[in-house]
Structures are given as structure tokens and as C-alpha cells.
């Protein structure tokens, strides 16, 4: 699961996380957007895979 997240957090995402990504939003205003992860929900069987209690 952590390897999957390593693949998901690719170079582009990490760069945007630090330096932001310029996006023209739906209201027509261009903003510099910084992605931040706030929640990560999963059921218990998935969660104990995530925290390596069980593979």
C-alpha cells in the first residue's frame, strides 16, 4: 500500500505540493493551487493493511 502511494505521489504532485500549480479556476481567476491531504478514510480491513498490521 505504501508502494502504491509512492507511485501516486509522483514528481508532479510533489512539485505542486511545494511550489503550487497554476490553474485557471471555473470563475475565470487564475490561482496558484497547493494540494494538501486532509482526510484518508478507509474501513478497518483496509486500514490494517495500510498500517502494516497485516498484509
Amino acid at each position, binding site marked *: 500500500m505504501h508502494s502504491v502511494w509512492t507511485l501516486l505521489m509522483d514528481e508532479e504532485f510533489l512539485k505542486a505540493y511545494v511550489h503550487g*500549480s497554476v490553474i485557471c479556476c471555473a470563475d475565470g481567476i487564475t490561482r496558484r493551487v497547493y494540494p494538501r491531504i486532509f482526510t484518508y478514510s478507509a474501513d478497518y480491513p483496509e486500514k490494517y493493511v495500510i498500517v502494516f498490521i497485516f*498484509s
Partner: protein
Amino acid sequence: MFNKPPRPPTTQIPSEDPLCGPSTPSPTPPPLPTGRGLRKKRATWKVLEQLPQPPTPLPDRASLPEHSLLVSSPVENAAQSVPSVTVRTSTNIFGVLREYSVMPSQDPEETASLNAMSDIPANRNDTPSRTSRLAPPHASIHTSSPHSPTTRNVTPSRTSRLAPPHASIHTSSPHSPTTSTAEDDITPFANWSTFALINWMWKGSKEKSHAEVDRLVQSVLLDPKFNALDLQTFSTSRETRRFDEALTSKKDGWMETDVLIQVPDGHSHRLPTDPPIATFVVPGLHRCSLMEVIRTIWSEETSSGFHYAPFKLLWQQDSGNIERLYGELYTTDSYLQAQETLRKSPGEPSCTLERVICALMFWSDSTHLASFGNAALWPLYLFFGNQSKYERCKPTSGACHHVAYIPKVSLLQMVLCIV
């Protein structure tokens, strides 16, 4: 199949039967062999694969005696007895024959074909019969004049059990089907097109609903761009295959990669001379680029309700007390804190754009695809916390974005790989 039960041979009928001719003395039957080894073995019907066969046709009228063809009136019939001559057909392969006391004026079995005998469709090369005179497959899209020759042969089969009562046209008409016109054939319907459509709907598969047939007519047949000539080489399987290939060739931003997992094997890997760490490859991770998803959604019209700046939601009571309300991600302390951290951080050089936070909310849940069996998916979903939960949680809002499909790995696989 149907076959008339064979009548007993005339030789065994008593001679006083007026319908039969003079009886002949029955020959002495040969002695039947007895015993197990002498028993005659016959192949069964299934082994022989004999197809049903209609009764053989009547003999030619010219070959019969003249008086057997007389059609006398009832009065004459009562006054004098017409000498009867037995008219007998030859036997078919099952030994079935017919016997008439007078020559019948018409033979209903004359046009019977193999299709009428069997539920299994017969060879197409068979001569067309009354029971196979159904509308051709292309009849429902045939939009030419109703006087075309194909419209003459659309009388529903009288043996068709799928046809509703109102579609069983012409069964009691005195005209024979070959002489009937198209106007007679479509009797309850206004025109041939309507008849052909209803005929198609009530035959074949029973899964066709009224609404679906209406949709076919409204969206396809009545479309001005519809041209029946385009469908002359149409094949459903071929076009579906073409559609599938077009779908699979368009990846839509999805990538398939292998996941590499380093597995502890109990050996030391500190020195460069040590063997490499055992790596287990899990194939089949389907994923999207996160930034591609964010960029697409944020520039779409659906994100017009997004909150780009966090705030505190407060409630002032009648007593004057102010209470904090929590309900959305963009009203939480976490968001406020993240925004504050971002504001204090040094910005990009020579960039005056507004800096906002894209709140990512991931959700992952393994999904079983079947009630029985182990077919399962483990998708990773992405929601945006900038969107109100009242909009986000609507199933129709399309606010849930698939980011990845995670492959599952079993412990047994991993152990086998290491060993």
C-alpha cells in the same frame, strides 16, 4: 413432429367393411426367431437421426378409376351408393400412409415442409412453405412501397405460437396467401411499416419492451439521418467489436504500472557485497495522475461552487454567546491552519497569484463485485474538501473521482515468490 397413426393394413380389416376393398387372405407370417442371440437389433431413432417426414402425396388423379372421382350430391348419395375405391398413398420412411375411401378434393399436407414437423429450424435451402413465410429479417427497416414483392409473403405463420392473436392475420381468409395482397396482410395496422415493427416486436426474443421499441422508432427510424441502405452490410457483433476496440484504445489518462515491494528475507543488506533485497512485483496498479485530476476538475464548470478560502462558521445565540459551528472541511481549524502556514511561507518569485489550498480527501474501500466468488476491486477515491458536503455527497453530483485501482496481494503469493 407429427405423423398420423398408421392405419391397420386393409388385409386385417373384416371383409364386410364397405370402405375397404375385397380382402385378401392373410399370408402366413414367417416364424419369428426366438432366443437372445437371434433377436433382431434395430438402431434407435436417435442413432438413425431420421428427420420427420410429411406423409407422401396423394397419387395422381389420372391414374385412378373414373368413378372414384365423382362428386355426387347429398340426395344422390342417399339414393344410391357410390362405389368406393380405396385411395391409398405410399408409405413414407416411417411406414405411414393414408387411405381414403374417395379421392379427396384437396390435400392439406401437400405443402407441409420439414419446418412444420420439427421445432428445430430446417435447412434454409428447403423450399419455402407456408410456415416459413415470415417477414424477412430486413423487413423492419424496409421503407419502400408496400407494393413491393416482399410484402406479399408476410402472412404470419399459423403455427407461430409467439404471435399474439391480433397478429394472426388471414388464417381464416378464403384467399390463399399467394394471392393475397399487402393490404390484406396488414389488416389491423395502418401501414406495412407498423405491421413489420409489431411483427418483429412480438417474435423472437421476448425481452423487447414497449418503451424500447418506441425509443427505436423515435431515435433511430424517424431520424432524418437514418438510411436503410447504410445497414446492408450491418453486423451487430462486428460493430460492437469495433466499439470495444475504440474504447480500449482510449486510455483516458489511466496508467498501468507494477508495484515493487521490498520484502525482508532475514539477510543483511548493509554492505554493497550483500545480495540485493528480495523484491516482490505486484502487477496491475491502475492509476491516474493526481495533478491531472486536480487540474481537470478545478478548471471545469462543476467546480464553480468550490470554496477557495477557509472561514470560521459561527452562531450567535440570543444571549449573545457565539458558538463555533463545524460542518465543512473549509470551516475546520486544520484548513485554517494550513492556509495560514501557506500564507506565511515564502511565495514563488515574481508570482502575484492568489495562493489557495486544494483540500484532498481520499477514501478507499475494497468492493466485492459478486455475491459468490472472490471478484473484488479496491478503488481509491478522491473528493475535494473545497466543495460543500451537501453537494459532494449527492450520488448524482459526480464529485467522487477515481484515482487508482489497487491490486491485492496474498501472503501465499509473496512467500512463494521469496522461496
